[in-house]
């Protein structure tokens, strides 16, 4: 536990801790929490949601250790205070504080905020406001550099005015370089703007104020022009994950986190090329961690954490080259330590069945599969061509291995989807259930989770219109009436949330005022159904004179300049266009693991290559 540090506000904080729900969210001092020495360059790393959610974020725990491993620099955690805590903090005039030393965030040198998804935008503004920092980058002349990172930077434009810098892509090396730069700047007495000017030369660093955006009269973007020698495009950064064996000391949260387990990364990127998937496009190319390191990490991390579950995570874990050797090794290790191994959502194919069987009795109750669509035709459109017989095999494998619960992820609102495709989701679930029955086994319970497709930037579907809410409602009704069995539990996403998500996901800088107004009206925690208030968004649209249909329902011209035109995640725009055409023709694109290159442009533009680890290493 950290001792008291000059400038901390622990005493003031303590006076309100008993007035709020779950005071443990605000304590710090958990097992493995870093010991912070006062002085040096200070970095506050924030997650714009409550402690239990933010503590599950692997990216932030990696970045925190990157900084804490540096000499003369330290990183501390910051999370959004829950609504009751925010009220108490505001009435007692307590600013946003860090968890390790309880110092005000405004006293840090760098304030890094993770941008996980669109529904956290109001929370991001709230973090900046609670820290007592002016909202707009142009209004800041002192105080910490406000930096955004994470998968939300695939289109950071609606937040562009609020951030001094964004780090595009993977942040390990970029953040390290940035902290070194700030340390040098502090030593040499640089001004704040001098530091920002120097920072743009670092890999992956995007300074939004270095770009001017002009709009056409009817709305779309006319041009995005770089100012004062800024590059025409800012390219994401990426790292070799075998060189970054982090986190080494994951912090054990006091209360149960949403992903309450040890996470060990198998690889970054994904070669499948599902056309709806933003991460699958923006984290290319695939880079695997060597098998020996995976097993070693599980071994080491169990000792320093005490977790009883380990998850081998990645975008598609069964694609890992050596999964059939690594999984049994990890299971064996788990059995000797009283642990279980789990895998995140799996492709429903033959490989998954084999893995499910190998997981053996050590596995917990459930397995999650993501077929995404009800018909084979639609699965070809989204480039996730899993055959129904593979699904049956995967499910039988899971049930034979003792899984009593199966979770299935589907999407509605996909391009070219018809009502028949939606009805087929219900029939597919029943066919899967019957397939288990016909093998003489009791069918597992099915949790069917259906989300609404939201087109995202840097994907082949970035040009298409989002499904209108009315039609989403109709499709949800079809699902409700077609899936009524007792063994099937159906859940779906709030379509109003998808509407806001879609509005922001392909938005431009003009949306900053909408986000600010919604925040000012009191919106917080928009991704929490109990907090989300769609009427606040509707009223902000009308009061700011913004037509959401322009962002949501407009089929973009293939030649139109996108708000993220200057943000380069490596994937070639021509490749995305080609993929869109193939999608509309129902054609499948191959997996580049199999050797055939589709020329998505990542490897040539980023001067890299996919890295599959055939050896144990």
């Amino acid at each position, binding site marked *: 536990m*950290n001792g008291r540090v000059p400038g901390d506000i622990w005493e003031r904080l303590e006076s309100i801790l008993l007035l709020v729900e779950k005071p*443990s969210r605000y304590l710090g001092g958990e097992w493995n929490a870093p010991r912070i020495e006062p002085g040096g360059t200070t970095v506050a790393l924030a997650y714009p949601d409550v402690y239990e959610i933010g503590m599950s974020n692997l990216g932030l725990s990696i970045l925190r250790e990157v900084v804490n491993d540096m000499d003369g620099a330290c990183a501390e955690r910051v999370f959004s205070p829950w609504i009751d805590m925010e009220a108490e903090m505001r009435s007692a005039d307590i600013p946003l504080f860090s968890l390790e030393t309880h110092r005000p965030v405004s006293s840090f040198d760098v304030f890094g905020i993770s941008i996980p998804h669109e529904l956290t935008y109001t929370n991001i503004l709230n973090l900046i406001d609670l820290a007592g920092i002016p909202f707009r980058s142009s209004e800041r002349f002192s105080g910490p550099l406000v930096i955004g990172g994470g998968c939300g930077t695939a289109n950071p434009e609606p937040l562009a005015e609020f951030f001094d810098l964004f780090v595009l892509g993977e942040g390990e090396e970029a953040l390290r370089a940035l902290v070194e730069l700030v340390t040098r700047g502090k030593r040499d007495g640089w001004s704040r703007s001098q530091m920002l000017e120097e920072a743009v030369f670092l890999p992956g660093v995007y300074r939004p104020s270095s770009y001017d955006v002009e709009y056409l009269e009817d709305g779309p973007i006319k041009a995005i022009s770089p100012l004062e020698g800024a590059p025409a495009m800012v390219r994401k950064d990426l790292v070799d994950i075998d060189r970054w064996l982090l986190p080494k000391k994951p912090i054990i949260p006091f209360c149960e986190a949403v992903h309450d387990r040890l996470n060990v990364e198998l690889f970054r990127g994904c070669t499948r090329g599902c056309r709806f998937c933003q991460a699958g496009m923006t984290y290319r190319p695939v880079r695997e961690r060597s098998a020996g390191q995976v097993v070693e990490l599980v071994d080491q991390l169990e*000792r320093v954490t005490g977790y009883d579950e380990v998850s081998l995570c990645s975008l598609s874990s069964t694609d890992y080259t050596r999964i059939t050797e690594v999984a049994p090794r990890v299971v064996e290790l788990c059995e000797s330590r009283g642990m279980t191994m789990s895998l995140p959502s799996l492709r429903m194919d033959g490989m998954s069945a084999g893995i499910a069987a190998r997981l053996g009795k050590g596995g917990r109750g459930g397995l999650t599969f993501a077929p995404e669509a009800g018909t084979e035709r639609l699965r070809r459109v989204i480039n996730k061509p899993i055959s129904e017989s593979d699904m049956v095999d995967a499910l039988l494998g899971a049930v034979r291995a003792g899984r009593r619960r199966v979770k299935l992820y589907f999407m509605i609102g996909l391009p070219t989807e018809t009502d028949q495709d939606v009805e087929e989701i219900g029939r597919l679930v029943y066919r899967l259930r019957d397939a288990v029955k016909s093998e003489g086994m009791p069918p597992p319970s099915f949790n069917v989770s259906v989300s609404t497709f939201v087109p995202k930037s840097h994907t082949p579907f970035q040009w298409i219109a989002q499904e209108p809410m009315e039609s989403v409602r109709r499709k949800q009704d079809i699902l409700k009436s077609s899936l009524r069995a007792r063994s099937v539990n159906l859940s779906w996403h709030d379509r109003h949330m998808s509407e806001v998500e879609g509005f922001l996901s392909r938005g431009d800088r003009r949306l900053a005022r909408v986000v600010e107004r919604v925040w000012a009206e009191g919106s917080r925690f928009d991704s929490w159904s109990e907090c989300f208030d769609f009427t606040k968004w509707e009223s902000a649209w009308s009061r700011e004179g913004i037509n959401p249909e322009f962002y949501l329902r407009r089929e973009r011209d293939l030649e139109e300049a996108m708000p993220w035109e200057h943000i380069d995640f490596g994937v070639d725009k021509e490749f995305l266009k080609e993929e869109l055409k193939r999608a509309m023709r129902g054609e499948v694109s191959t997996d580049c693991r199999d050797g055939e290159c589709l020329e998505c442009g990542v490897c040539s533009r980023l001067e890299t290559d996919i890295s599959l680890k055939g050896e144990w290493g």
Partner: protein
Amino acid sequence: MRGLFATGDRYLSEGRMGVSTMPVPEPLRLRVQIVKGGPARYLSHTEFSRALVFAARRSGLPLEYAGTYHARIKMSLSPPIPIGVTSACELVDFKLVGYISAADAERALNASLPGGLEVACCRLLPGGERPVGKLIDTATYQVTLPQGAGSRADWERAVAEFLEKKVIEFERVQPRRTRVVDLRAGVHRLQVVDCEGIDPANGSEAGAGVDTEKAVRFEQNDAGDGRGHSSDFRLSMALDDGTRGTIKPWEVIEVLAGMAGVNRNRWEHARVHRDGLFTRRGDRLVSPMEIGRRKPAVSRAGRKMS
């Protein structure tokens, strides 16, 4: 850390956690007394128990597990303590499948506990002994009032009035139901005592009969909230807690404050410290750390309730 328990070589077996321990024919019960203070006082009962599970797993103790699909360690906890209340004597029993000395267990657990939690002492018992969860029925508390929360005479008068009554009805509001409980029946000792040091003879037991030194040191470290607290007296009480029902210290303070004519905003920042957990044997308070000893240390175990 893990090599700590490697003792001899003939009797070694590989335990579940990969720790070499001596196999035992019957499971053992490791009883641990834990000091809860600093920021850890804000942990809820569930969070406290979670912290112990993780610490126990990290410590490499030869823990006994139950369950097939998802095995959980076998443990038993003393009754919950209100959030914000510090304690010198939280108790937990772990079932063990191998032998480890109490001193080694204490060292291993202490090296694995997060800040604010500290092992005061450990002892080994036969596995068949009653678990702490089914043993404890009384908790003792020391309450230090904030400055300005009435005079010593006010509180002494209130205590006398409280003790005179046969029944004190109190409306307990809980998330799902509100009911009336009799506070008087659950209060076994209530007095205003001097603050100077801790005087076991005066009825204010420090710790569950063991390791007074650590408990006192912890309390002194703990004056962290920057509020002035009354320095010449405190309230000392023994309340029902556990198998025979639970009276919360705050409920007694609220009723007493009403009798003493002290407003809520004056007393609500009182510091409450749980300093003992006991099982009642007749009119004696017996510490679970003493039960089952072949030669009970009479001087410690047998205390009169006033």
